[in-house]
């Protein structure tokens, strides 16, 4: 691998994006960002990040999930493999399902969301950094 590890950070809260960018850049990651689902998809295509940090909620309640499904259902292996860490407020009252709808075609119903990690909101910087290291270690090991 050449140079820095590139991370795509997706969140609609620009302040949080700036803060987390600062945190991750402080650990020598290269950070690109997106603030909604369509930007996230085009950035993923253009930048080919080594890892995506994705907010679950974003403006629409399930946008983060849709990004995951969109990426994972593409033919190219890069999109199926790129590790994703979800930023969640896991204790939040949501009707969210962490597994796909049946009929989606790509994943059988009941299968869990195909992401590699979760980080609770409000984000503790240290926890995010640890999770980044953990996921990156696994994904680079598997390649």
């Amino acid at each position, binding site marked *: 691998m050449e140079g820095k590890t590139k991370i795509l950070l997706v969140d609609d809260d620009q302040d949080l994006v700036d803060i987390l960018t600062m945190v991750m850049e402080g650990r020598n990651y290269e950070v690109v960002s997106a603030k909604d689902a369509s930007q996230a998809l085009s950035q993923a295509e253009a930048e080919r990040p080594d890892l995506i940090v994705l907010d679950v909620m974003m403006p629409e309640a399930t946008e983060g999930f849709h990004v995951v499904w969109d990426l994972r259902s593409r033919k190219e292996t890069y999109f199926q493999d790129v590790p994703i860490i979800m930023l969640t407020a896991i204790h939040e*009252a949501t009707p969210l399902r962490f597994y796909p709808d049946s009929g989606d075609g790509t994943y059988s119903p009941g299968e869990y969301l195909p992401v590699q990690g979760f980080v609770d909101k409000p*984000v503790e910087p240290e926890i995010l950094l640890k999770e980044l290291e953990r996921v990156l270690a696994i994904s680079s090991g598997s390649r």
Partner: protein
Amino acid sequence: MDGGKPEHSIPEKPRALPATEVLIGRLGWLIRLRWVAVGGSLFFVEVARRVLPIHIYFSQIFTVLGMLALYNMILGLVLRRVRRGGVGDSGNGSGGEGEESVGGVARFILPRTLPGVEYYDSKAAQAALLAGAQIGFDLFFLALLLHFAGGIENPLRVFFLFHIIIASILLSRQATYVVATAGLVFLSAVALGEFWGILPHYALEGHWRLDGYLDPGLVGAQLFLLGVTLFVAAYLASSIAARLRRRELDVVVLSRYLADKTESLEATCAELSAAEEAKSQYMRKVAHELRGPLGTIRTALTVVLEMMPETVAEKTLDLIRRAHRRAGELADITQELLSLSRAKGGRAVADFTLVEPAVLARHAMERLEFRAEEAGVSLSAEVEGELPAILGDPEGLGDLLANLLGNAVRYTPKGGSATLRVHGVGGRLVMEVEDTGIGIPKEDLPRIFDEFFRSKVAREFAPDGSGLGMAIVKAVLEHHEGSISVESAPGEGTRVRVEIPFEFDL
């Protein structure tokens, strides 16, 4: 806001007292009664022939009884057709629109109803005519029997009273008087017909006077007394029947009134719960909106505190630490508001899943471990092995246990202990949290489930805390058909016991 119809069905307004059914039922009774009369007459005639020293005109009497039996059989068939839904009208008897469909004659015959109470349907008209006709025919047959059994001299004449009583039960008051009049007419026809020689006289030869039917004084007196008896009986019996009927109608009116009241109560109830739901949703929205910015503030402060403390002066750092802590408290409160609104909004029961009590307990313990250590409270759990899974909302149940344990830790002084016990008792999951904490004053116990309530002792001992924890516990329990009991001794500790059925009717 439109409360909408409550989901469970309101019982239909009680139908008009099923007067028609009652009437038809009584007609059936009348037919059975007539069979008894036929049988009784046969028996009596047979006994009279053997015991009484009188001559009886068997062939005539048997002919009359035979006709009566035939007539009764036909009536039975007709009644069966009326029961099934009307004679002659396209089978739509029972659905009639109240009194309009009841014709003039029928209206005269049927007992009165209260204004505004539909009491009869079109079937009733047929039943009414049938009742009137029957009683008329019965009077005729009785007169015939009387005629063949000695006329006015026979004590059988008092049997006309029975018809008056029957009429008063089945028919209106005016119809009862008509029946009394008809009875008197038939009696007079027999008595006067024989007196004037228009009808032959079948004398009961034997001990009786044989010329009584020719005595104008006797005939006149008999007819007069019988007439008075019939009309007095008509008056008395129909008065009693009218009073009973009015009472019946009162019951109908009352039950209508109650049904209306129930309906409006249920509507109010639905509106209230819709308002409650709206409140919950509002709360959820507000809390949700607060969370995002709060989380970002806290994360920003954390970054300063943990990653770049050297960039600010120590005094500034102290201020940031305080801000960080208070932002954390605020985040906790919004978190609890969210939990409460979720528990109250009640996740759809359809979303319930099987929850392992052991896993539930372990997660709650993990959530509290750090705080317990910080507070110097020893935290332990005793969980019965092999407990069946419970059907419920995992997040709600998690919040419930975390809140109970959180309270135990928060209100227990350093060095104390908090224990979680989970076991099954008779189809119910029992979760107990016991602590050696400050306890709850007796007078505050009833209020601990109120939102935002915190007892004075609690506030003094632990300034932070939203006062929402027990409200969340209560809301989750209501959603799971569970129950809770709290025992507490101020200064010694508190024991909270929660029970949830493993299975309940969805």
